[in-house]
């Protein structure tokens, strides 16, 4: 191979605890230098276990993990030099903020002068200059989180792991810190492996997102691709919102297939390798659905009944009865002329063939 090895590689990694079910199965994953990769999935899907295996706290049951092309199987966690930010911050309550930050430097044998300088720089990075002498319990949740991030960075690791670091904070603070973490990561150029179950957080911060489900990666792609081109129904409904309509493929032609959904014929992008006659799930984003008066001709036009309308400020959320599905959602932007729809009205809705995707059905 002529290209440089990826910063981190998981190669065929399996993990289970004792004789229980597999927590992680068949994991192949690569992180590039300076990349911000997020593991996204519901709780219990194996994300944190992946992180802990890389940090060295859990050995893989099978497979290999490499950093800079070298296997770390025999490297104990304290020798890996990876910064880890834990869910509950894990700040040491008996030490001041300064001592917490100096701890990794102290165990590395840096002298007092160097320690002080680096601690000062790390605090500046997270905008907490001057709080060295406080104790963790005298800080707010957001400040504690910043200290935890600073501590994971103060010894200048190239790789930082973050396990749901913002889970305990309220929404405003969380958004603010998402931005901060991203800024710091760009500024330092460190590689970050981030774990969260919050898809908005994953979308906002990551270069790439790996969607986890039951110990496997369902899809790994940039946030845009994940949103626009989900490969599986799970991803389609986990990332953002999607209406899923059950149907049967009638014919396939040049990337577009015709699908019968409850007596109606729809056209959809044909992305899964499904032949004519097979079952499918058609996924349509609520914001791609137009409601009459339709401004143009659409490949898919259907009759629907308005069940319910919620006003959400910047948009209206309309629940429709379409093809026997009463949970079909359409979002209409709050612009002049949106009005005139009432619950119980019969309306015509429409969307383009390439706005919806025929996915392989699966249990989830």
């Amino acid at each position, binding site marked *: 191979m002529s290209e440089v090895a990826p910063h981190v590689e998981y190669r065929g990694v399996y993990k289970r605890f004792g004789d229980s079910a597999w927590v992680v199965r068949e994991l192949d994953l690569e992180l590039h230098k300076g990349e911000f990769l997020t593991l996204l999935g519901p709780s219990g899907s194996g994300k944190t276990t992946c992180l*802990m295996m890389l*940090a*060295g*706290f859990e050995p893989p049951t099978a497979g290999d993990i490499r950093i800079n092309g070298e296997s770390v199987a025999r490297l104990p*966690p*304290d*020798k*890996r*030099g*990876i*910064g*880890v930010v*834990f*869910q*509950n911050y*894990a700040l*040491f*309550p*008996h030490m001041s903020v300064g001592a917490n930050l100096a*701890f*990794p430097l102290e*165990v*590395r044998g840096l002298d007092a002068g160097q320690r002080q300088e680096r601690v000062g720089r790390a605090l500046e990075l997270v905008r907490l200059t001057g709080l060295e002498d406080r104790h963790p319990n005298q800080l707010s949740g957001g400040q504690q989180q910043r200290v935890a991030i600073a*501590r*994971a960075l103060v*010894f200048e690791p190239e790789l930082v792991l973050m396990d749901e670091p913002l889970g305990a904070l309220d929404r405003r603070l969380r958004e603010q810190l998402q931005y901060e973490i991203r800024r710091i990561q760009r500024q330092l150029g460190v590689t970050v492996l981030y774990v969260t179950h919050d898809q908005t957080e994953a979308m906002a911060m990551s270069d790439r997102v790996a969607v986890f489900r039951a110990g496997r990666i369902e899809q790994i792609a940039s946030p845009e691709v994940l949103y626009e081109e989900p490969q599986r129904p799970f991803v389609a409904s986990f990332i953002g919102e999607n209406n899923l309509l059950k149907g049967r493929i009638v014919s396939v032609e040049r990337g577009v297939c015709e699908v019968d959904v409850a007596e109606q014929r729809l056209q959809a992008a044909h992305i899964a390798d499904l032949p004519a006659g097979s079952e499918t799930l058609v996924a349509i984003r609520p914001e791609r659905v137009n409601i009459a008066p339709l401004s143009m001709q659409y490949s898919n036009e259907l009759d629907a009944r308005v069940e319910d309308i919620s006003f959400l400020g910047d948009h209206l959320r309309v629940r429709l009865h379409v093809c026997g599905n009463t949970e079909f959602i359409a979002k209409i932007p709050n612009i002049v002329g949106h009005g005139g729809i009432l619950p119980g009205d019969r309306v015509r809705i429409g969307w383009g063939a390439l706005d919806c995707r025929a996915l392989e059905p699966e249990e989830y």
Partner: protein
Amino acid sequence: MKRFLTGLQVAPRLGALALVLPLLAFVTLSFVVPLATLLGKSAYQPEVSQVFPDTMEALAGWDGEGLPPEAAFAAIAGELAQALEERSLPRVSGAINRVQSGMRGVLNRTARRLERTEFAGTWRDTLTGIHRDWQEPATWQAIRQAGARFTSRHYLQALDLERKEDGSIGLRPDESRVYTPLMWRTLLVSLGVTLLSLLIGYPIAYMIANSPPKRSRLLLLLVLVPFWTSLLVRTTAWIVLLQRQGVINGLLVSLGILPDDARLQMIYNMTGTFVAMTHVLLPFMVLPLYSVMRSIPSSHMPAAISLGASPLKAFRRVYLPQTMPGIGAGSLLVFILAIGYYITPALVGGRTGELISSQIAYHVQTSLNWGLAAALSSILLIAVTVLYLIYSRVIGVERMRLG
């Protein structure tokens, strides 16, 4: 109006006070009063001066050299007769006998013979006629000493000190020192037991605090079941295990590790005291430690290790300091209990494993020298208090976690 409002606030407070009043009364009556009374006996001894008031008055002007004036002989003759009649003589003669042995005989014989003896002109001659010791200044000194209401005698005795002829205070001769060696031994055994239960209890507490809930409950139960079992049963169980014909010796002999005639002496000595006391007091160490450890997030050790500390260093710098309140509370608890422990050392300690508590028990129950028992107890109490103060200064009482 203002007064009315203030009245409203006072009423609930009085109500609250009324609620704790029964407890307060109970604690005062059953704990504070008896304790204070007993401790008071170590320095306050009114018996002799109550029974011999005139004698004490007559001796007040005596300089201690030679014999006291005739008035003192007259007074004691009268009061001895009265004491015999009122049956208070044994108590008083016992108290004086503790100051100088042999005095019980002198007093009892004199009192009984007085009636039948002819008056010899002076009381001095009469008494000397009954018992020769009445012409010894030491006899009178003993009476005067026992008659003092407040005395340091018991404390001096408890610390193996004595008042020399010239009135100065000095150590007793080596061979008659009883209590200080015993106190040192008690202190060392208590420290040893505390250290041993810390060494054994720390890993147990760690395991309980860091096991999955189901196993943690089971382990906790294993610690608590002995705790709920009678102290006597547990101590006797150790006798069964450790005695010369006991389980452990039997096993060692049958495995051929020990010859039959060299069975280990593991009980009725210091070993027995150590083993049984550590076992009995272990829960008092484990429970505070467990309570502290449970509150330490499990991510702290991995966090320290991820920052580059070796597991040992992570433990020493991050985990151990956070368990200090538990170590302090457990150690203090075990030490305080150990220093006054009675039943276990009395059962398995033999002669060499005996602690100060058995001397206190002896003086309370057998020799009836309550003053000395109280003095010994006070010294223990002072030792524990000093220790507690040091502890609260170093670690801080507010950080102590008793479980």
